[in-house]
């Protein structure tokens, strides 16, 4: 069982590293912001980074047995479909998540 001291140390280490990674690049990259390469990257990166993060959240998905993938596949299709149709992120996120909760609860039970 982790002690409070250990947990506090783990939090401190994680915080220091995370904050460092978020703050220090501004000092290094600041002067580069005006270059045309940087502007090209800043323009092109969001789509790709968001896609990589979306794929990353699905990294534990395994194709065997295929039935285990059904809730995720259906919810994924719902998220894409809802968002292309409504353009409303609230509806897309809530709808797809609710569908996933329902499917994972009853799919496992059934």
């Amino acid at each position, binding site marked *: *069982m*982790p002690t409070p001291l250990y*947990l506090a*140390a*783990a*939090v401190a*280490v*994680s*915080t220091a*590293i*995370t*904050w460092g*990674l*978020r*703050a220090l*690049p*501004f000092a290094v*990259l*600041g002067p580069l*912001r*005006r*270059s045309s*390469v940087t502007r*090209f*990257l*800043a*323009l*092109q*990166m*969001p*789509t*790709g*980074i*968001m*896609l*990589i*993060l*979306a*794929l*990353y*959240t*699905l*990294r534990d998905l395994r194709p065997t047995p295929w039935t285990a993938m059904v809730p995720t596949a259906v*919810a994924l299709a719902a*998220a*894409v479909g809802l*968002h292309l149709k409504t353009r*409303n*992120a*609230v509806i*897309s*996120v809530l709808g*797809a*998540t609710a569908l*996933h*909760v*329902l*499917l*994972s*609860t009853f799919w496992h039970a059934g």
Partner: protein
Amino acid sequence: MRTRDFTAAAADTASVGLSLFPLGVSFGVLMVHAGLDWWWATVFTAVIYAGSLEFLLVGLVATVTPLGQIAATALLVNLRHVFYALSFPLRQVRPAGRVYATFALTDEAYALTAGGRARDWSGARILWMQVLCQAYWVGGATAGALAGALVPVTLHGLEFALTALFVVLTIDAWRDLRDLPTPLLAAGSFAAAALLMPGSLLPVAMALFTASLLIRYALRHRRPAPAVPQPASEPVVCGSGLER
């Protein structure tokens, strides 16, 4: 003025909040199920404030993993934040606020300001946006941990909120440009990283993706040149001055 910034930030964060809150709930439940006191969920989300790392930490701290390994995990999982400095509008925030603005520069804060969307936002609006994002996350985690401590029922599948959020953000970011090669390069980078270095999937995928974009940039900027012989190339200086 203050109220207007807050109202704007509340509207900016509505969709993100609807995925951050349920996600926080599932994190809180997970913390309690791992045997930690409920208030550690509040401490983790308020102090570390890095969602995907926190989810990984639950398993690591429950088994008292050495701090060195926790540091390495934090470094690898959050290395992607290095790239956010390229476009996050930190200059619009006054110096005192930059401490918090960099601390709270999460994937969601980056996504909400990406693509030049925040170019005319005030510093206060950017900070409120970040404060609200963190409030949804900490509030959800605390509520989830308290509920998990009281009611021994698990809700399966809540974690899909994060996937749904990133899918929605991908579609929104794609709509700004409607450019196909970039998402293909991203998917290819992810597949390559998953095959080559599954242990540090996220930073490797992002590094490969950045490298492929740089190659694409180099190819695109070579194309119009070949007809005229160029003098020895000088460092590229962009003097348009239109960007801000």
